C-alpha cells in the first residue's frame, strides 16, 4: 500500500517542509483520516459532487475522431463538463469540506492555468471561506479570464513576481503564506504534489474519475479499455483516472508537455527528462541543473508548466506501471484543433496534450481496441492563446 505511514511511495514523497508547518500537516493527516472514516463526510462530498459539480460526467465515444484516425476507438471522459470547467473541482470540494470540518476560516491556493484557482475560489464562495489565490505574473497575463473569474467569486488574487513567475513560484509563495498563517489557514493544494498527506488526499478526491470510468467502460465498451491516456503536469487528473486501473491489464499513459521539443531545453517533461530531487515538500522527479537549482519549465499550457510532478507518478514510472511520454506545444495545438473541428469540443490546452498523443496511438491500433482519454478541462480559458498562434 502506498503511501506508507511516513507518506512515502517507495522512496518518493515525504515531508520536506519548514518545521513551522509540520504540526499542521499532522493535524491535516488526522482530520483527513477522521473524515475518510465518516459516513456523513462521504455523504456530503457525494452530494456536492453530484448536485453542485455535475457528476457523474459522461464517457463519450468520439466517433468522428475515431473514423478520421481509422484506428482504435477513442472515448472521452468528460471532466470538461464539470462546474468551473475542469476536474479540479473534485478536489476543491473535498478539501473545502475538510477545511470546514477543521474549523478553518481561510483558504489559500496556488494556481497555474487558473483552473485550480477558480475551483478554489468557487468552493470558498460556496462555503463562506475567505480566499486568497497566488498566481505567477506570467500566468496572470496568459490566463486573464480566470483571474477575472476568481475576483468575481470574491477571492483575492495575489501576483507572484519571483522566479519564472509561473506555477512553481506561485506554489513557493503559497507555501510562504501558509508558513506565516498556518494557525488559521487551510492550504488547498491543487495537484497530487506537495508534502504528505497532500498527494494522497488529492489523489483520493480525484479517484472518482477512475471509479466512474471503470463502471462506464463496462457499460459502453463492454470491457475495460485497452489504454487510458491523461496529461500530466503535477498529475492530478492522471492519478485520478489511473488509480482504479492500476491492478488491471490496462495500458496507462501519462502525457507530459514537451514544449518546444525535448531536445530544446524548453519543456516541462519532468518524468521523461528530469532527475530525482526535493521540491515543494516532496521527493520526486524534478527539472534541475547540475547544481540542484530548479529548472524553468516551458509549456504553452500554463497548467503543465511545472518543473515537478507528484511523487506517486515518480513511483509508478520507476515501477514500470505507467508509461510517460511527451507531446510538443505544436502537437497539442493540433490536438486542440482536431477535437474542435471533428467533435465540437474545445479541450483545455493541458488536455489537448492527451488528445494529441491518443490520436497518434489510435492510428497504430485496430478498431477493436479502445482508448479512453481523460478530457480534464475545457478550452475556453485558452482561447486568447490559441487565437494568437493558430
Amino acid at each position, binding site marked *: 500500500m502506498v503511501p506508507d505511514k511516513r507518506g512515502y511511495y517507495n522512496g518518493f514523497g515525504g515531508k520536506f517542509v519548514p518545521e513551522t*508547518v509540520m504540526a499542521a500537516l499532522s493535524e491535516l493527516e488526522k482530520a483527513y483520516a477522521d473524515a475518510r472514516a465518516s459516513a456523513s463526510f462521504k455523504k456530503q462530498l457525494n452530494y456536492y459532487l453530484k448536485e453542485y459539480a455535475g457528476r457523474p460526467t459522461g464517457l463519450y465515444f468520439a466517433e468522428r475522431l475515431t473514423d478520421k484516425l481509422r484506428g482504435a476507438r477513442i472515448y472521452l471522459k468528460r471532466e470538461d463538463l464539470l462546474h468551473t470547467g475542469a476536474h479540479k473541482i473534485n478536489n476543491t470540494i473535498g478539501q473545502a469540506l475538510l477545511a470546514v470540518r477543521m474549523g478553518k476560516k481561510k483558504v489559500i491556493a496556488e494556481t497555474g492555468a487558473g483552473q485550480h484557482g477558480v475551483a478554489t475560489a468557487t468552493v470558498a464562495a460556496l462555503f463562506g471561506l475567505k480566499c486568497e489565490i497566488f498566481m505567477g505574473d506570467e500566468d496572470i497575463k496568459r490566463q486573464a479570464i480566470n483571474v477575472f473569474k476568481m475576483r468575481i467569486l470574491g477571492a483575492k488574487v495575489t501576483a507572484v513576481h519571483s522566479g519564472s513567475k509561473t506555477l512553481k513560484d506561485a506554489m513557493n509563495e503559497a507555501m510562504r503564506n501558509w508558513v506565516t498563517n498556518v494557525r488559521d489557514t487551510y492550504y488547498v493544494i491543487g495537484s497530487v504534489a506537495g508534502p504528505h498527506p497532500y498527494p494522497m488526499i488529492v489523489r483520493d478526491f480525484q479517484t472518482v474519475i477512475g471509479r466512474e470510468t471503470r463502471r462506464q467502460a463496462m457499460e459502453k465498451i463492454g470491457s475495460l479499455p485497452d489504454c487510458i491516456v491523461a496529461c500530466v503536469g503535477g498529475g492530478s487528473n492522471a492519478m485520478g483516472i489511473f488509480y482504479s486501473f492500476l491492478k488491471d491489464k490496462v495500458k496507462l499513459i501519462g502525457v507530459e508537455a514537451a514544449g518546444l521539443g525535448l531536445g530544446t531545453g524548453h519543456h516541462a517533461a519532468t518524468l521523461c527528462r528530469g532527475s530525482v530531487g526535493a521540491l515543494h515538500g516532496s521527493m520526486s522527479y524534478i527539472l534541475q541543473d547540475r*547544481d540542484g537549482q530548479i529548472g524553468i519549465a516551458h509549456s504553452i499550457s500554463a497548467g503543465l508548466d511545472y518543473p515537478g510532478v507528484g511523487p506517486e507518478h515518480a513511483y509508478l514510472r520507476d515501477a514500470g506501471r505507467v508509461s510517460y511520454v511527451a507531446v510538443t506545444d505544436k502537437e497539442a495545438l493540433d490536438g486542440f484543433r482536431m477535437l474542435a473541428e471533428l467533435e465540437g469540443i474545445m479541450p483545455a490546452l493541458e488536455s489537448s496534450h492527451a488528445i494529441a498523443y491518443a490520436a497518434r496511438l489510435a492510428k497504430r491500433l485496430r478498431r477493436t481496441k479502445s482508448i479512453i482519454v481523460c478530457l480534464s478541462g475545457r478550452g475556453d480559458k485558452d482561447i486568447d492563446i490559441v487565437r494568437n498562434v493558430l
Partner: protein
Amino acid sequence: MNRIDKKVRALRARRKKAFIAYITAGDPSLLMTGRIAMALEDAGVDILELGIPFSDPIADGPTIQEASGRALKGGVTLHKIFNMVKGLRKKSEMPIVFMTYYNPILRYGLSEFFKKCRDAGVDGVIVPDLPCEEASEVKRYARPNGIDTIFLAAPTSPSGRIRQIALSSRGFIYYVSLTGVTGARRDLAADIAPKIRFIKSITDKPVMVGFGVSNAKQAARVAGLADGVIVGSAIVKIIGAKKNILPAVSRFAGSIARAVHGG
C-alpha cells in the same frame, strides 16, 4: 570538540551570549562574502551562518530571496563556496554553519557534500526544509565527518516534536522566533519567552534564536532569554543596498554584538 562547541563553551565560561550573523554566500560576490565575513568577525560575531543560494527558498522572505537571486545570477555554486570557505579558514577560526535547502546538497551527493564540508572547514549545517524525521540520511553522512546537524524548532512545534528536535540537534538548536518566513520585523513574537524557557527546560544544548530579530534592542531582549541571537535579513539588507558595504555592515554588526554580549 568542534569549533561550535568550543565557541559555545568559551562564551558560557564568560557568561556571554552568542551573536550569529547570517549572510548569503555570493551576494554581491564571493570575494565580498569573504571580506564581509572577516568584517563581521572583527565586529564581534561569534558564529557565521552562510546561506547557500537556492532558486526556490520557501522559508525565506523577500530580502533573502533577492540576495539568493543576485548570488545565483553571479554564478555562485557550492563548489565555489567551498573554495571561498577554505580561503577563509586560513585567516579565521570562527565557526561556520551552512544554511542550505535540501535539493542542492542532495544533488551534490550527501556523502560528497559532508566530506567537502569537513575538508573546507564547515562546522555545521542547517536545512530549513528538512524536518528531523526526514534527516536520517543527512545525519548518517554528517556525523562521521564531524559536521553538526542543527534543526529548527518553531512556535507551532508541539512539545513532543521539540524533544525530538533537541535530541537530533548537534551544536545548537535553532529556535524560529515567529510563525513565518525570514525577514526583519518590528516586533518580537509575544510567546517567545515561555517557548524558549520550555526548550531550555528539556535540554542542555544551546538554544539560538533567529527569524525577525533586526535591531539591537530586540537582540538584547533575546540574548536575555536564549544562548544566542541570529540576525540575518537586517544584515543582508545592508549588503543589498550596496553602499559602503563593509563599514555599514561593521557598524551594524558592532551594535548588535554590544547588545548581545552586554557591557
